[in-house]
């Protein structure tokens, strides 16, 4: 935890209210997000109990699995979910704009620009908490390899038609969620805790109710108090007043309410199956429907507060202006979405269960690049984030006190002006450390020359003298040499060199992460990494083998 976060949390404790951790919104929010509040069954990994899902705050669709261990009911749930999610995804896939992408020409091996489609918007699936993201991943994992009756008439338990496709999309969302700064599948608790610092631990911040209580406590109450109540308060029946955001449910709810209701449902179902005649069956069907309705009401009662909380969180986040570079990162999400749309359209198989060596390395490299980009962009977009970086010695801001023109020693001398900056920050500068500032959205590079003594006289002694950043005085005068973005001429272009009196902010970190080297193709995986993926990789992966637990 950085010093400034610690400070903000301490302030939150002392004031009883969350403190802003950002002045702008650092994540894209869709105009029309699809909110998904899933619940899972205790003790049954990957067995959904129900969900609220939809794009309309006032009219969520309630999906319920009255007997979570029944495979048919589970499939019915997934089919219903697919009916909500897939049309939403398709809605974004239709509107496209023309864009360019550089690709390697297979014949010449050169990089060429090709005209491609880029979806004008991308879907955004919002879940309440990080555990929700994991649950989406699990659903994707358990459904993308399923076969429909159409794909495989022999399949013992064919999945409903669009379920495998739903699995592929959920997998894509969940995989993209691992990319720093992406917004295809954000968790509300992550979104909120990025923008506010509460007086509780980051683990406690994973409780959506408590987090909202800190950020926006009810009138006349402190956030700490309200958060405590959100976490612990129970009604006369021993049920939590603020149900957990899921997908896991509260054990008291499971034991006292859900289990008896499911038992009644099971009994009604058994009774219906044993009905002797039509009249009896009608009557027993009525009992079954009533039992089902009861479970639906229970599931809704536990998801609806979370649903409302997610939308309340969206209100809070929408009140913040969007950061300047958020749009650019969202465009990356759109590329990711378009790419997967194209893979689906091209009839490619579902994402493999495990990445091969090259794919894994590529993903890791891409995520490291995105992490560096995100950290830089958030700082550039937001003075409060930059303040944190300045406090930790990774950036400094100050006023230009002097500019001396100088030139490089080469046949065609280029401008290398020396700029003196007065700052109160304490950057960790060493000899010739490169620093960057944003000039019209592009990074301009300078290198650290040395500290200048306040007296400005040559030969004056003191720890701050000379190059090499030997000492580290508390701020003071820093001399920088600007090295690029000044045009091709002998004289720097207008506006490309800071002037005396300008306020400037330089960072020690790069603004645009460099791309790494291209890795070999998977077919050329070297011997150190097991060689190319063998023939088994070409075979379609089967769904998980059926176990006894799968069957009732």
């Amino acid at each position, binding site marked *: 935890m950085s010093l400034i976060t610690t400070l903000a949390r301490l302030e939150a404790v002392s004031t009883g209210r969350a403190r802003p951790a950002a002045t702008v919104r650092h994540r894209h929010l869709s105009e029309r997000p699809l909110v998904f509040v899933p619940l899972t069954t205790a003790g049954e990994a990957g067995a959904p109990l129900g969900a609220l899902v939809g794009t309309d705050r006032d009219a969520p669709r309630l999906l319920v699995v009255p007997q979570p261990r029944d495979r048919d009911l589970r499939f019915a749930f997934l089919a219903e979910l697919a009916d909500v999610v897939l049309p939403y995804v398709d809605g974004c896939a239709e509107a496209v704009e023309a864009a360019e992408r550089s690709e390697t020409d297979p014949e010449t091996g050169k990089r060429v620009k090709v005209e491609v489609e880029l979806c004008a918007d991308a879907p955004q699936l919002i879940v309440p908490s990080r555990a929700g993201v994991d649950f989406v991943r699990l659903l994707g994992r358990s459904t993308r390899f399923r076969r429909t009756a159409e794909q495989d008439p022999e399949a013992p338990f064919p999945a409903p038609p669009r379920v495998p496709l739903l699995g592929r999309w959920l997998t894509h969302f969940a995989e993209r969620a691992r990319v720093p700064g992406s917004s295809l599948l954000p968790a509300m608790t992550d979104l909120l805790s990025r923008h506010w610092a509460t007086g509780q631990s980051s683990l406690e911040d994973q409780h959506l109710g408590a987090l909202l209580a800190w950020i926006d406590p009810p009138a006349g109450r402190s956030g700490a108090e309200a958060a405590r109540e959100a976490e612990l308060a129970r009604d006369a029946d021993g049920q939590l007043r603020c149900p957990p955001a899921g997908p896991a449910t509260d054990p008291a709810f499971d034991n006292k309410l859900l289990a008896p209701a499911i038992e009644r449902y099971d009994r009604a179902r058994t009774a219906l199956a044993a009905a002797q005649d039509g009249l009896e069956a009608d009557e027993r069907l009525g009992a079954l429907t009533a039992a089902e309705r009861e479970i639906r009401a229970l599931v809704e009662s536990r998801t609806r507060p979370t649903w409302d909380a997610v939308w309340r969180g969206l209100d809070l986040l929408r009140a913040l202006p969007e950061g300047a570079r958020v749009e650019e990162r969202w465009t990356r999400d759109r590329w990711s979405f378009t790419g997967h749309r194209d893979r689906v359209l091209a009839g490619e198989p579902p994402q493999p269960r495990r990445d091969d060596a090259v794919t894994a*390395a590529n993903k890791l490299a891409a995520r490291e690049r995105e992490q560096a980009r995100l950290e830089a962009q958030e700082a550039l977009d937001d003075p409060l984030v930059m303040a944190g970086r300045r406090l930790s010695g990774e950036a400094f801001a100050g006023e230009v006190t002097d500019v001396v023109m100088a030139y490089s020693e080469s046949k065609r001398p280029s401008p290398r002006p020396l700029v003196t900056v007065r700052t109160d920050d304490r950057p960790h500068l060493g000899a010739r450390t490169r620093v960057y500032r944003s000039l019209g959205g592009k990074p301009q590079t300078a290198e650290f020359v040395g500290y200048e003594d306040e007296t400005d006289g040559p030969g004056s002694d003191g720890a701050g003298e000379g190059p090499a950043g030997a000492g580290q005085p508390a701020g003071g005068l820093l001399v920088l040499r600007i090295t690029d973005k000044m045009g091709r001429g002998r004289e720097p272009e207008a506006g490309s060199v800071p002037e005396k009196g300008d306020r400037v902010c330089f960072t020690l970190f790069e603004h645009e992460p460099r791309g790494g080297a291209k890795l070999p193709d998977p077919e050329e995986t070297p011997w*150190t990494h097991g060689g190319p993926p063998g023939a088994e990789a070409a075979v379609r992966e089967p769904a998980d083998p059926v176990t006894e637990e799968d069957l009732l």
Partner: protein
Amino acid sequence: MTRSSTASPSPAPSAGAVFDAGAAAGRATDAILRDTLHGAARGVVVDSPPGAGKSTLVVRAALELADAGRPLMVVAQTNAQVDDLVLRLAEKNPALPVGRLHSSDTDPYDKALDALDNVRTSAKAADLAGLDVVVSTAAKWAHVKGVEPWAHAIVDEAYQMRSDALLAVAGLFERALFVGDPGQLDPFSIVGGEQWAGLSYDPSASAVTTLLAHNPELPQHRLPVSWRLPASAAPLVSDAFYPYTPFRSGTGHGDRRLALGVPSDGSGPDRVIDEAAESGWGLLELPARHTPRTDPEAVRAVALVVRRLLDREGASVSERSEQAVPLTADRIAVGTAHRDQAAAVRAALAGLGAADVTVDTANRLQGREFDVTVVLHPLSGRPDATAFHLETGRLCVLASRHRHACIVVCRAGVGELLDAYPSTEPVQLGTLVKFPDGWEANHAVLAHLARHRITWQP
């Protein structure tokens, strides 16, 4: 005061120890070179404890491979390591044609290379084609495409190289010698890679882990003798960090001495210096307290110890020279866990007029050697023990940079902190659990340091 030798398995008298050590090291080197030059396996792995002559081995193997007429590429991890290697190669064999492949940044390599007649530098691999040996960083090698593969490669610091970095360069060579220290810091990633944990080619694992997972039959060797660590340090470092692959020091207890010209003034720093000069270890313990990372008192204490080391006119005698060598600023280093701590110590040292002492983090001190090191304990003043601060490699690097003595500055209470925070990292299926874990190694080092403790209230 307790002498460290009472508790550690004491090596034989010095003359015999030197002879045995030299012979054992020689046998190990011969076997490595035999496998490398004449073996059938595509790879050879060499584990080297701190200061066991890894660089010497790399240079020697490179020269012999070049002699055998095998085009050789050398992969190191940092530009400083590459430059150092090129300089050593040129020193051993000035006539050897060596290529230094470098990046296209400004000042991409040490200017000292320009003075060498047979060293050619270029940013393009094609310019260096045909040279006996071409040396570069893994990052630069990854950009080399479409060239004839080299017959042989040497991968230096292979345990600090990430698996994905090896993936990017492994297509460039037919066979390779992998050399590194398994006890130092593991490579890391700034984003989580749990998704791939347990896969044999986990991209965030070390290159050697992946290599051996796919090629378990490769011959593995070990350098058995540390020439850097003194007899007072080798047993502790070996027991705490290499419990299953022990090594010993190349010198005996009497072979190295650190004498101080100016007597102690009785202060904490002076007493801990005396203790360390006598026994090889010193722990300057400050009162227990939770502090920010840049604990001003601890930073000040570190700076004072360094200042007094310089003021007291230390001189060292070792197997390298009969004459006492003065303990100058370039023979002292300060090690910390975090960069801001290093910056704070630098500032404090500048204030005491000792700005030319090396101060750096464990990551950057890897592979370096000094006479005396002063270490700010990674867990000093902390309320918690995170995986970062417990990492075995971090403590191992900090505790194994010295030829004579190591002084640790720490707040009291680390033992209690360790007991309150047992290792709780999730165990990932399919990954090799690394022994010893940081918790155990920290306890081992702490227990040893306790015998050289000087408590001090600044």
